[in-house]
């Protein structure tokens, strides 16, 4: 028990790092820098940041005047201050401790370390009451149970690796300490969700995750947008991420409100017992609304639009967001509230499954045509998250959240690997070209320069594609099969098809970046001359490659934790024998390999430029390519909606304020003034006019009074 109840240490350790960095090391840094700057000469100041990343751009100002803007991509300092270094080490060490603790918890709760059985219903670790009155209670409560531990392991592990990796990726960044602070905050937010015992806490974590992503995506504050590459500025991307997910949050909180006002509690356990008395339709509505939150955070259709631009953040952040934290939050939340979904009408799970399935297909189709290295991964994430929701939606109470969480678990590792690998590539390209480069048509053959990255990336590719015996194979094929078994044949078909697409686009990306026609292993292993960009890339430093290797191992190994079904839901189990015996498993494998094969056939066998020409020359393909490249024009549609719908309405309100409300008020004032101006002219200055007024008044009053006396006395 004590082992579990001290797990709040895990929860608060990243917060501790955050606080220490923000108020300790960073403040120390700032203060000491101030004093340095005060004495520094002009030249020294210039040295404070390398100018290589800074570009001037001329822009027409709002009033037609010329304005000069500085586009600063990734400001670097000549050397890191001690404070910054300490910040990083602190973050990493603390995260490592937390990670170790959470692994111990996992091992203990699975029984590998005997003697610490997890009590049913979990162990409360920390709680704090805001307000309680009769049936309404607002309490911050944290609890640890198996589900939490499984998620906690993912979060801490990936965070640790990302933090470790960032030492290399963020080298000499002027925001080094800030970055670590944000990473810690991000981890804390996610752990908050993980430990949540009730909707209040999960919502807090939910929003904090939004905040952390906002901060991290917008980490490079002065970077410009690149419209020619269809890329937003980090500042815009961060807002888009925050606001889009908030749209989902509205549904989420309305769902919470329905549950809360119907039962008087936010607590998951209490809710599970109390929802039985709720109106079924209302509960179903509430759960669908709660799922809206997941749609937003996990970037499901139609709120997926934030995720691709979120790639504007530093790549380790992308890894963290996509693998372990933000997007996983939605899945975790549905898993966490699984009993409530189960108690609701079947429509709730149907919605979850269908949204997942559709998103999986939708995102996969877009991913096929993207040119941006990271964006392919972004859409692959969206697609894979769709799988997870399918897993949750079709599982039913027999399997519980197992299938979905299993895929989340495996996906966390291989997707983190993919992103960190991509980061490694970008890092190398940045060094080679001295500017940011993410377009795959400027890559190619990179395997020759950076073998570790390439091989680990290939492992991850195969894993995500569901190649047999990699981690993704188990988690993905099992939930596709589950869709069929549970009678969702359409979903099964869709996910199956999507599996093929997954293989296609992942291998396409791999070959475009690392391989190419004429490379070794039939084009899978690139050569130096296949490189289409400038400069000479090099393999990344050890701080970056070590996490890649570790994750590559995990990308295979994670799939062998078959006990996860039973771990998460007593009674459920992953029947390995049946899995291998099932023909559907192998159908899935065939489809995946078909996808891989097609990709191989096209991209490893044909030069990239020729493929492009062919597509451009073919009307149908060209149109299709355009549509997919532009993501079905969803962004355009949303932009129009905001510009003319939302802002239009705002302008109408503004006009209403200005002309109707203020018009009325000012009008009254003007009428009174005019009235006064007229009335003052009764004073003509002529004394006899005054007499007329005087006696006229007397006469009128006298007449009135005579009339009054006659009638009212």
């Amino acid at each position, binding site marked *: 028990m004590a082992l579990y109840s001290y797990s709040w240490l895990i929860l608060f350790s990243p917060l501790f790092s955050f606080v220490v960095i923000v108020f300790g090391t960073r403040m120390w840094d700032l203060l000491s820098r101030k004093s340095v700057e005060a004495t520094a000469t002009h030249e020294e100041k210039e040295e404070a940041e390398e100018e290589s990343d800074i570009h001037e751009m001329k822009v027409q100002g709002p009033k037609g005047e010329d*304005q000069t803007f500085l586009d600063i991509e990734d400001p670097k300092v000549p050397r890191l201050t001690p404070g910054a270094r300490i910040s990083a080490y602190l973050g990493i060490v603390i995260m490592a401790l937390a990670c170790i603790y959470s692994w111990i918890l996992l091992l203990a709760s699975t029984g590998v370390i005997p003697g610490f059985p997890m009590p049913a219903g979990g162990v409360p670790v920390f709680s704090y009451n805001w307000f309680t*009155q009769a049936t309404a209670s607002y309490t911050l409560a944290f609890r640890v149970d198996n589900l939490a531990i499984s998620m906690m392991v993912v979060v801490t592990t990936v965070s640790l690796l990302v933090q470790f990796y960032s030492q290399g990726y963020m080298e000499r960044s002027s925001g080094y300490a800030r970055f670590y602070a944000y990473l810690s905050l991000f981890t804390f937010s996610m752990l908050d969700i993980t430990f949540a015992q009730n909707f209040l806490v999960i919502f807090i974590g939910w929003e904090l995750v939004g905040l952390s992503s906002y901060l991290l995506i917008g980490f490079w504050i002065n970077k410009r947008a690149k419209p020619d590459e269809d890329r937003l500025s980090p500042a815009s991307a961060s807002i888009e991420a925050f606001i889009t997910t908030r749209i989902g949050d509205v549904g989420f909180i309305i769902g919470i*409100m329905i549950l809360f006002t119907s039962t008087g509690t936010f607590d998951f356990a209490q809710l599970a017992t109390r929802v039985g008395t709720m109106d079924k339709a209302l509960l179903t509505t509430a759960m669908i609304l709660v799922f809206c939150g997941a749609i937003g955070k996990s970037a499901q259709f139609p709120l997926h639009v934030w995720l691709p631009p979120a790639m504007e953040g530093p790549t380790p952040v992308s890894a963290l967001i996509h693998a372990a934290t933000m997007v996983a939050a939605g899945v975790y939340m549905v898993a966490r509230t699984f009993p409530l979904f189960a108690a609701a009408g079947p429509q709730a799970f149907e919605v979850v499954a269908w949204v997942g399935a559709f998103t999986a297909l939708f995102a996969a189709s877009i991913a096929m045509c993207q040119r941006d290295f990271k964006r392919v991964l972004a859409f692959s994430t969206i697609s894979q998250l769709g799988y997870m929701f399918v897993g949750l939606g079709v599982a039913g109470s027999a399997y519980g959240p197992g299938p979905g969480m299993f895929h989340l678990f495996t996906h966390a590792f291989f997707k983190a690997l993919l992103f960190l690998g991509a980061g490694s590539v970008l890092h190398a390209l940045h060094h080679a070209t001295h500017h940011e480069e993410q377009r795959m048509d400027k890559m190619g053959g990179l395997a020759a320069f950076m073998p570790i990255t390439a091989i680990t990336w290939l492992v991850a590719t195969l894993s995500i594609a569901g190649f047999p015996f990699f981690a993704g194979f188990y988690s993905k094929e099992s939930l596709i099969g589950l869709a069929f078994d549970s009678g969702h044949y359409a979903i099964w078909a869709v996910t199956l098809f999507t599996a093929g697409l997954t293989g296609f686009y992942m291998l396409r990306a791999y070959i475009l970046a690392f391989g190419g026609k004429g490379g070794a292993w039939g084009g899978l292993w690139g050569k130096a001359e296949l490189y289409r960009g400038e400069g000479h890339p090099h393999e990344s430093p050890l701080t970056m490659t070590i996490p890649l290797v570790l994750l590559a191992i995990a990308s295979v190994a994670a799939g062998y934790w078959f006990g996860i079904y039973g771990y998460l839901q007593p009674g459920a189990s992953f029947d390995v024998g049946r899995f291998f015996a099932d023909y559907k498993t192998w159908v899935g494998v065939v489809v995946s390999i078909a996808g891989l094969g097609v990709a191989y056939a096209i991209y490893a066998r044909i030069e990239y430029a020729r493929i492009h020409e062919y597509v451009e020359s073919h009307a149908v393909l060209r149109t299709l390519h355009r549509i997919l490249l532009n993501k079905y024009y969803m962004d355009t549609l949303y932009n129009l909606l905001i510009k003319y719908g939302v802002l239009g309405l705002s302008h109408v309100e503004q006009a209403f304020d200005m002309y109707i409300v203020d018009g009325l008020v*000012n009008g009254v004032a003007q009428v009174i003034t005019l009235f006064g101006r007229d009335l003052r002219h009764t004073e003509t200055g002529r004394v006899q006019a005054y007499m007329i007024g005087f006696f006229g008044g007397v006469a009128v009053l006298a007449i009135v009074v005579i009339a009054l006396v006659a009638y009212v006395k």
Partner: protein
Amino acid sequence: MIFTSDLTWILFLPVLGALAVLATPVRIARWMALLFSAATFALSLAIFIRIAVNGYNFGSLANPADSYNAPWINFNAGSFHFVVNYFLGVDGLALPMVILNALLTMLAIIGGWHKTRVKEYMALILLLETGVMGVFISLDLFLFFLFWEVELAPMFLLIGIWGNEHIKHTVFGDMPGRIYSAWKFLLYTFFGSIFMLAGILLLYFNEGGTTASMQFFLTHMPGGNVSFLGITMSLQLLIFLLIYLAFAIKIPMFPFHTWLPDAHTDAPTEVSVILAGILLKMGAYGLIRICLTLLPVGIQQFSGWLAILAVINILYGAGICLVQTDMKRLIAYSSVSHMGVVLLGVAAAAGLTGTAQLAFRTAALTGASIQMFSHGIITGLLFFCVGVIYDHAHTREIAVFGGVARVMPVLATFFTFAGLASLGLPGLAGFVAEYMTFTASFKIWAAVTAASVFTMILTASYLLWMLKRVFYGPFNLKWKLLPDATLRESLPLISLASVIVLVGIYPAFLINMLNPSLTAIMQTVTTALH
């Protein structure tokens, strides 16, 4: 003697300060102002600590934790009595407002350290503090009304003298913005207050006309119906409407809100801070203290409309923020939106009869009360931030900036922090209030609350968008020499940010302070509406 009560001192220390400021040379006057405002703040904290130490029972209207009652005017002529008592008291509802007032005034004095005509400025700020303080601690309706009016003149002068010279209102000739806005503020508020007086008189005479003590009306609620211009309504509703009009203008509630953006745009920073931070709370405080507590039947009959107006406030205010080009105007409209949350909470608290859903209604009211406090500090912080950037750049036009976080990292941090607090980020003050209000109000006004929640999107949009346009994105070279916030300018920022975090992560101290008061209010309401 009235001077034995600390409430008297909290009320008159600022006046003494104002006199001291006027009497001393400029160099000393600033420190005098700071000294007296700090003393007031310290005194308010002392009251808090004294009560907190003694078992944390902050009492309620019927039984305030600290009160003082002395006869002031007691005029009797036959059946006519005009009785005004010097009846002060703080309970859990008033004390947070008192502390907030003292704090923000002190910070405003720090913020306005280098104003022109600084002596008058400091003196007026201090006088304003007294007026507002009086509103929060008077327990006599006439006294309440009196203090309600006291604040007018200093505010009028503060906006008019130190306001923005920019001519933008051409309706009345070339009137500089500061003058137009000062007028607008003055006339709107005064217009509202006359109806409040009418309402108070109606209430006063209906209940015997022997005392205007709020405690008295707790047990003597008007009943019956009145016919007015052919419309029959309950007497309480009529009184409520009359009194509420003043509060509605102050809060400000749609459609009486247009004075606020103008006043904020043209007022100097520190005055905006006080205006948004405290003066708006006077309306909300009055709504809870007088309308809800003393006129539960009236407000209950109006609560449906109140809820609808609340959602209009929330969404309309937020929506209009999106197209603002002036930072202060944007924040002003955001105040409209945020104060709507208070309205919603109160509407929920009054929304049902009897003890139905009492827990949720209490929670909603608690949320609304926390919102009052948290909006005060958050908007205060926002305005201070705008003030810093305005002092340095001499413009508040959003469009002319870009990426200035590069040269103003400290300010950018605080501004972003404030923006995040304002959009209801957990861990900060705004979240506690909004979350409680929304979740609890949903029980009473489901559709309205559900609609209100959409403000989450809008609030995030306009705030982050504004921050982005000002601080983030490519850096506009025009501002390369823009200095960051100085230590003096940072002081208010730091203090308010700390309070925001404190309330955000440990709201219990505030909730426990409010709880006895609000429970008692709900008790009254349920008894009256049984």
